[in-house]
């Protein structure tokens, strides 16, 4: 690991130099919201952000992505034969993502990059990307990253982690990818003695976290007991099945596959989908294994807080970014759900049911 100091003029020049070799993405402010966008030449990422409305998960997992192409024109030799669509995998970098979003990509990687089968679309985009994080000194009241296996100065999944020191940025370089980016940008002022600044700032940021959850009992509670717990109707009561929580969540990865045809040429695409939508699981016969709202809400929370925990033994499938808490139109709060699940004792069920 190398530690660099980058003064802010150098930062701007460095990004301009990097832009010749990387496609840059970063948070920009539009209206009153920050969101991740491709940075056209000369545009700087706005690092003075709290957290974006949508996470940058779409950089590796676009909301809609063409996978295959084909022609239905029978006069063509290759009609009805599907081919892999061309996707641009030139080097790119996302500048200024939060540590929670970086960890989220690592959790999602468990799904798309498995020992038996790999999703080439997700993985090639992931491999082409350099992840440059901006440590978070202003956690929101809805952030609970420190109790979700993460933290405002977490480096997991990042090639570079930066912190703001007013006149300068401090940057920790963790990987070859990160080093290559810093070299391209011409950032090379090594300052190993500044390591302590990171430690102090990390402690200060963590001390500002007001929101915590407990997850220590989730792994040991029986899956079927939790599934049958009495609180699910109550949690789901107000849910509109709007899907906002899943679309804004950096760790939700479910998708749909659909064909689209224009004239004689067609594509097969991958689109974000949501377990909150009633047709997500409906069978052709009309039978729907998760027919009710309660079943669907339970699926989302059980997937994040129990199934994932049991399957991967790497903590919960949530990084505590708080997006779903802030954006759910009816205030369904994963922190409350997690408390209920974590403190659930099967005996409670008997009491509750009389």
């Amino acid at each position, binding site marked *: 690991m190398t530690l660099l100091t980058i003064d802010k003029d150098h930062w701007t020049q460095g990004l301009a130099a990097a832009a010749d070799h990387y496609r840059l993405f970063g948070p920009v402010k539009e209206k009153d919201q920050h969101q991740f966008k491709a940075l056209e030449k000369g545009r700087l990422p706005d690092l003075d952000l709290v957290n974006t409305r949508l996470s940058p998960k779409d950089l590796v997992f676009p909301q809609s992505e063409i*996978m*295959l192409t*084909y022609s*239905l024109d029978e006069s063509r030799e290759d*009609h*009805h*034969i*599907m*081919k*892999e669509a061309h996707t641009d995998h030139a080097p790119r970098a996302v500048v200024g993502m939060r540590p929670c979003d970086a960890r989220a990509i690592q959790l999602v990687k468990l*799904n*798309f990059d*498995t020992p*038996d*089968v*790999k*999703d*080439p*679309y997700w*993985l*090639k985009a992931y491999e082409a990307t350099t992840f440059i994080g901006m440590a978070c000194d202003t956690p929101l009241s809805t952030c609970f990253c420190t109790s979700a296996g993460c933290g405002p100065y977490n480096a997991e999944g990042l090639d570079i982690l930066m912190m703001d020191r007013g006149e300068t940025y401090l940057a920790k370089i963790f990987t070859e990818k990160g080093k290559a980016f810093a070299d391209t940008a011409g950032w090379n002022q090594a300052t190993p003695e500044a390591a302590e600044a990171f430690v102090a700032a990390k402690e200060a940021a963590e001390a500002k976290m007001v929101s915590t959850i407990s997850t220590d009992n989730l792994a040991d509670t029986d*899956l*079927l007991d939790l*599934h049958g717990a009495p609180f699910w109707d109550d949690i789901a009561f107000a849910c509109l099945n709007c899907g906002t929580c899943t679309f804004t969540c950096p760790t939700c*990865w*479910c*998708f*749909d*596959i*659909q*064909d689209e*045809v224009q004239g004689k040429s*067609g594509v*097969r695409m991958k689109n974000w*989908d949501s*377990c909150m939508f009633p047709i*997500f*699981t*409906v*069978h*052709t*016969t009309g*039978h729907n*294994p*998760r027919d009710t709202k309660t*079943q669907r809400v339970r*699926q989302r929370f*059980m*997937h994040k807080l*129990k*199934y*994932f925990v*049991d*399957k991967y033994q790497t903590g919960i499938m949530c990084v505590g970014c708080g997006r779903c808490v802030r954006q759910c139109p009816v205030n369904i709060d994963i922190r409350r759900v997690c408390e209920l699940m974590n403190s659930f004792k099967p005996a409670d069920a008997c009491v509750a049911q009389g």
Partner: protein
Amino acid sequence: MQNPYLPYPVRIDDITVEAEDKSLKTFKFVFLNDGDEDQFAYRAGQFAELSIPGKGEIPIGIASSPVEKGFVKFTVNRAGVVTTHLHNMRAGDRMGLRGPLGNCYPWDLLEGKNILIVGGGFAFTTLRSSIVYMLDPANRSRFGNIDVVYGARSPGMLLYKDELVEWEKRDDINMHITVDGTDDPDWKYNIGFVPPITEQKAPPGGADTYAIVCGPPIMIKFTQPVLEKLGYDHDHIIMSLENRMKCGFGMCGRCGIGKELVCKDGPVFTLNQINRTPREY
């Protein structure tokens, strides 16, 4: 990096109408490119995604058996958008085939055992694959007694009629064919639903006997207690689930039940495993 979403190009070689109401057809596919058939090395009980460019992709159990070479077969019920389109296609048309997908019946475990097969309706497809596999001269001695209870609504709805007649004649497999009802005076097999016929005809369970059950949910529901009564342990009852699928290999998240993904961890599960997952199938 291999692209698991990319189907093999195939051509429809032949179409057989199975059911009298034409709702079921068997499609025989041949691969367009040399080498693809070898790549598509499957085992009985697996499924594949049939892919119609411009219409979509659907998971269908493989009805042919790994011992049959030169083609792959699927029996498809006309149900919705993609299946209706497929039913309207003709021999010679091209489409895509992706797989093989999913686990298979646990052949290592079944080796040397007596096998009871219980099938209803068009879910009989992967059971056909298994029967043909076990009856193959190279494999028959690897299994003990084979009993098959197979039911359909009416005689006209039975699949693979020619093969049923052939199997009837053999003495190394016991066929118990049944229909829910018929007004055919010459009908010489059973009349009645699958569960009661199973109760009458199936061999008792035991350490050496496994039951493989595939059919509509209602049939499975009533067959389970019958098998229990006959002495089949929950880890000797093997079933195949059919949750809604898209990717077919564990990524799209659609087919999850608890922490299992039906496409990847299944579709074949023992009843013991199913008992440990939420009832979401």
